[in-house]
């Protein structure tokens, strides 16, 4: 391909000329060089050791270290997020930058590593003690709950006991002698001699716990439980759990130990309490006291932890930034190759030819910064590989280019449809969205985003609004074009504007109003006289339908013409004669002719001639079905012209189908006849050898001798060429018809939009426009607000999205299929700015 010619200014018409450059970087400045190039962001490095495992590469140790630092930084930010109180995190643009290049770089990194480790150690220690303390606090709180709640159980049990005892007393007289002893017990508040187990268990587990206990003890238990109202919050995870206090009365040591075992295995905590009420009160007081103490300690621990986090928050973002950049630098360095003496790193990469001077400046800068004298050396390599595609965009063209890139990345130096989309896209959108009012709304919204873009770009906008913000310039143009088409359609919120004198006057005769031409011609756009006329819809339909066809054919013809610069640039004259010319003739002889007829029919004043206006649709169909006959004549000599055009279109089909395969076949035969068979066709082809030789000539064999065969020439297979051509021809001929019909969506959507906005007007605000009194005014205001909300919600946002999608489709399918090969791959340079965007 040779050295690409570089124009003075970059343009979007073709992708940037790229160069394959080779860098010889002394090992000691390698890091700084890559960092500098990363800031610059226009070199895409190639992997020079694809066969080496990730962990066997040279800089894996550094990457591990940076990974560890990244893990710490992530730990900090997760801690800050989890903290209940808001911890201020200083944004990156406010933080002092950490310098990680230059002679002190290693020291800075070491210091950072130590700082991070210290902070982590401190933080995890605090977390640990916080957890231990809050665990202890939780236990105490649980104990308090157990003490409180069980008091209720005991009271109830006491009542029960009396009942039970009474019933016993009735039947068992001999036990009477124990009465006084029992009285003693109850007076000293000692419970019945049932033993019990008390504790706390997770509420979710309670039913299972109960069931298991019932089965294990065969029903020999009396269990009671109450909910603890407030949740327990785990200090480490922040998850809240609800728990229950339970008390189980059972008899016998065996059973009790079973209960204990079950509750322990089910994750319950047991709190032994005293059956004596006084002692319970005593321990409750004690527990309360300890809770207060712990609360104090916990508060102090928490606040010192918060102070630590605040301190971390001040530099967190700059750490994040450094870690991210360092990782990118070392990952890039891993792509490099060492020279034989391991003193120099060899890098290869693509960069825009235009930027080589800038890169060289950056390299020199990096050398100066790092304080060494050996500068990195850059020189261009000659290669036969296809360079990546790089469209140099700015904030205005970026959105439009993205639309085309999401269809496919342009082949290197192919004509870029993204350039034309800047105008065609908003225009086709506006054809479907023509309304001065709605256009103004989106124009103003986009204008707001454009004017405040600096502020908005910094803020985190969320996914949906962020998307709109990204496309703010597209929206701006869409709004402006919609205002323009709105004037053409003379449509503002479904009403008309009377800017000039109307061409129609409305004399009233016998209650029927009929428009009469008054000799004026409305200067721009649709005459407002049509508004409200009974045949308004018939008129606008016919007008918009024909306009859609005209626009569509123009758009497709233009797209077809974009083939020519490609064929010229890639030196494929055959494709012009056997591809472009017949395609153009085919399309123009059918649809170009239709467009001319449409325009001609518009120019004729049918009210002044005696002839009947012919239906163009019938005319087109008859042109195919009954060639040579014309039912309703549009102009003299029509049948001869139409037969001629049909003939041309008919010839174009075999032209497209046969010429190219035939010439290629002949070429192949010629090559064969000269005896050039075999050598060139095996494996790598001649080009690869050529590349090898070049590399050796320049004395840098090692870095360049690599997989040249990924570009191996395709085997010339005649069958493939024929099949490809057949498919292509059929696709084009059918495509012409279906694509032209597809442009009718311009009409359909524009019609739907106009009708919808009219319906909305009629259904809401129209009835309340002449308010009487205060109530009427209030209603008008309410209805007006509702109307505006619906206008924005339905007509602007939803209809706008739908029109956007259709405009997208018209570009991707109808226009791109005519010329866009999209066989390239994106230029992805090492760029720190993009790196931070990704997160």
């Amino acid at each position, binding site marked *: 391909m040779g050295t690409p010619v570089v124009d003075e200014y970059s343009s979007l018409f073709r992708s940037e000329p790229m160069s394959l450059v080779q860098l010889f970087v002394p090992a000691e400045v390698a890091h700084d060089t890559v960092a500098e190039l990363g800031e610059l962001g226009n070199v895409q490095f190639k992997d020079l050791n694809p066969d080496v495992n990730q962990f066997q590469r040279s800089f894996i140790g550094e990457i591990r270290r940076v990974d560890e630092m990244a893990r710490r930084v992530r*730990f900090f930010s997760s801690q800050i997020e989890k903290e209940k109180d808001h911890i201020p995190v200083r944004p990156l643009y406010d933080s002092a930058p950490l310098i990680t290049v230059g002679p002190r770089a290693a020291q800075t990194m070491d210091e950072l590593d130590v700082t991070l480790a210290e902070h982590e150690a401190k933080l995890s220690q605090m977390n640990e003690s916080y957890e231990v303390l809050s665990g202890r606090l939780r236990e105490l709180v649980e104990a308090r709950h157990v003490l409180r709640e069980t008091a209720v159980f005991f009271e109830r049990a006491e009542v029960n006991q009396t009942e039970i005892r009474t019933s016993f007393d009735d039947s068992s007289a001999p036990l009477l002698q124990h009465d006084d002893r029992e009285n003693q017990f109850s007076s000293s508040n000692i419970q019945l001699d049932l033993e019990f187990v008390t504790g706390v268990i997770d509420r979710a587990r309670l039913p299972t716990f109960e069931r298991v206990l019932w089965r294990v003890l065969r029903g020999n238990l009396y269990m009671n439980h109450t909910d603890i109202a407030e949740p327990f919050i785990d200090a480490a995870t922040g998850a809240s759990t609800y728990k229950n206090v339970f008390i189980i009365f059972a008899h016998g040591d065996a059973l009790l130990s079973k209960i204990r075992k079950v509750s322990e295995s089910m*994750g319950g905590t047991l709190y032994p309490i005293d059956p004596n009420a006084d002692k319970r009160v005593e321990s409750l007081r004690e527990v309360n006291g300890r809770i207060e103490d712990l609360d104090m300690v916990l508060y102090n621990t928490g606040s010192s932890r918060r102070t630590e986090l605040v301190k971390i928050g001040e530099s967190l973002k700059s750490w994040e930034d450094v870690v991210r950049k360092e990782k990118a630098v070392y990952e890039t360095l891993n792509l490099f190759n060492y020279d034989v003496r391991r003193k120099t790193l060899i890098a290869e990469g693509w960069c825009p030819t235009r930027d080589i001077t800038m890169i060289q400046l950056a390299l020199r800068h990096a050398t100066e910064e790092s304080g060494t004298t050996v500068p990195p050396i850059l020189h261009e390599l000659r290669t036969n590989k296809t360079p990546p595609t790089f469209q140099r965009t700015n904030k205005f063209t970026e959105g439009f280019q993205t639309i085309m890139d999401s269809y496919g990345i342009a082949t290197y130096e192919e004509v870029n449809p993204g350039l034309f989309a800047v105008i065609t896209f908003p225009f086709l959108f506006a054809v479907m969205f023509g309304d001065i009012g709605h256009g103004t709304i989106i124009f103003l919204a986009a204008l707001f985003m454009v004017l405040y873009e600096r502020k908005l770009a910094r803020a985190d906008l969320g996914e949906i609004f962020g998307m709109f913000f990204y496309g703010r310039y597209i929206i701006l143009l869409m709004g402006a074009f919609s205002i323009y088409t709105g004037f053409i359609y003379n449509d503002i919120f479904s009403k008309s504007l009377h800017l000039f004198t109307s061409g129609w006057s409305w004399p009233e005769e016998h209650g029927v109003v009929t428009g009469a031409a008054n000799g004026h011609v409305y200067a721009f756009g649709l005459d407002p006289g049509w508004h409200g006329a009974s045949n308004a819809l018939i008129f606008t339909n016919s007008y918009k339908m024909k306009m859609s066809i005209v626009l569509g054919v123009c758009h497709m013809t233009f797209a077809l013409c974009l083939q020519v610069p490609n064929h010229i640039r890639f030196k494929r004259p055959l494709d012009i004669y056997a591809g472009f010319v017949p395609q153009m003739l085919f399309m123009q002889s059918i649809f170009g002719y239709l467009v001319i007829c449409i325009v001609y029919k518009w120019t004729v004043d049918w009210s002044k001639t005696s002839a009947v206006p012919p239906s163009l649709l019938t005319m087109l169909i008859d042109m195919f079905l009954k060639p040579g006959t014309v039912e309703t004549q549009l102009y003299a000599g029509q049948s001869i012209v139409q037969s001629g055009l049909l003939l041309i279109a008919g010839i174009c089909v075999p032209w497209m189908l046969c010429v190219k395969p035939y010439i290629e076949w002949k070429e192949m035969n010629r090559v064969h006849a000269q005896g050039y068979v075999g050598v060139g066709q095996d494996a790598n082809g001649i080009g690869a050898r050529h590349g090898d030789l070049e590399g050796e000539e320049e004395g840098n064999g090692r870095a360049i001798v690599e997989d040249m065969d990924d570009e191996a020439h395709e085997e010339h297979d005649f069958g493939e060429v024929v099949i490809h051509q057949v498919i292509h021809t059929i696709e084009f001929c059918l495509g012409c018809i279906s694509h032209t019909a597809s442009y009718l969506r311009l009409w359909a959507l524009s019609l739907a939009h106009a009708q919808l906005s009219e319906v909305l007007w009629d259904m809401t605000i129209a009835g309340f426009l002449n308010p009487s009194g205060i109530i009427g005014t209030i209603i008008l205001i309410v209805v007006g607000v509702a109307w505006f909300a619906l206008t924005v919600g339905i007509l602007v946002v939803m209809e706008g999205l739908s029109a956007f999608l259709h405009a997208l489709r018209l570009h991707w399918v109808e226009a791109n299929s005519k010329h866009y090969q999209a066989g390239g791959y994106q230029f992805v340079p090492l760029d720190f700015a993009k790196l931070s965007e990704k997160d």
Partner: protein
Amino acid sequence: MEALFFNADTGFLEGIVRGYRSGILTTSQYSNLTQCETLEDVRTQLSTTDYGNFLAEEPSPISPSTIADKSLKVLVDQFNYIKANSVYPLNKFLDYMTYGYMIDNVILLITGTVNKRETKELLRRCHPLGWFESMPALTVPTTTEELYESVLVETDLADYFRGCISAKELDTLNIEIIRNTLYKAYLEDFATFCESLGGPTAEVMGRILAFEADRRTINITINSIGTSISKEQRARLFPTIGRLFPSGNNALAKADDMDQVRAACDSVQEYMAFFATGAAQEGRLLDTDSADDDGFKMVEQIDDKFFAEEVNLNKQAFLQQFQYGVFYAYFKLKEQEIRNVTWISECIAQDARDRIQDYIPIF
């Protein structure tokens, strides 16, 4: 028929699981793993696979058990995702898959309790897929009857357990019997369920479960030779499905030594191959010092062969569509992969590089 409606309920999940399957480590990834010098290298290497950065939040140095735990968590998350999105019959099918783990957990807990192990430690070692609510309470009962009545009666294992209530005391031998009885009942039930689903599921799962049953039968036989278990008792533990059933099972029930086991397995060609090389080894090693060690080696070798054959069968499950076998197969393969990764990282950690190749490659 299944092709008509399968995708309505399960198409999405089948897509997911086949996507998961493409994430299973390939031979080249394994060979990269075996080249690792340290566990840090393993971490780096795994981060380029489908495991992604599952170890990113682990502070260095990491241990093989961390790798095993985290990769098991990946599997469990995937299983739970599939399960949460499934409807009948897939959810039932997945339930059946968990029963196997439940049995393992039950046995683990009982054994642990009998051997007086720490309850918390035992619970930690339980397989998360086999977790059920009342499982922790298993550490309480001391007899099988209690075990059944207090805990298992309300679980899905209740039906399987009925057969082993006769065993009274919980000792090591009885626990083994319980395990095998449970497994026998489980495999038979699972096979019946898969049969009821019909179509390719029955076909694919039939193959896999038959193999599983035969493996158990052979293992039981080998392990019970020379123990106090009577031959009738042994025969009762054999699953009544599988390719060895019934004639092979009968022969195995009567087998007294390895030669008879081998003879019993002659009817199935694939199994014959397992013993063939085993026999050669045996013949070669017969005159060396200890016969016990030799037998052990052979059993170990057969075990490895079983694993390899299981992997092979599970791989075949992916060749058919519109069936639930892929779900079973995927999780079994993933389990094998976790075993492999754990093995490799153990080898690296203990610097036993000569045995690092002893993993079972999957794809």
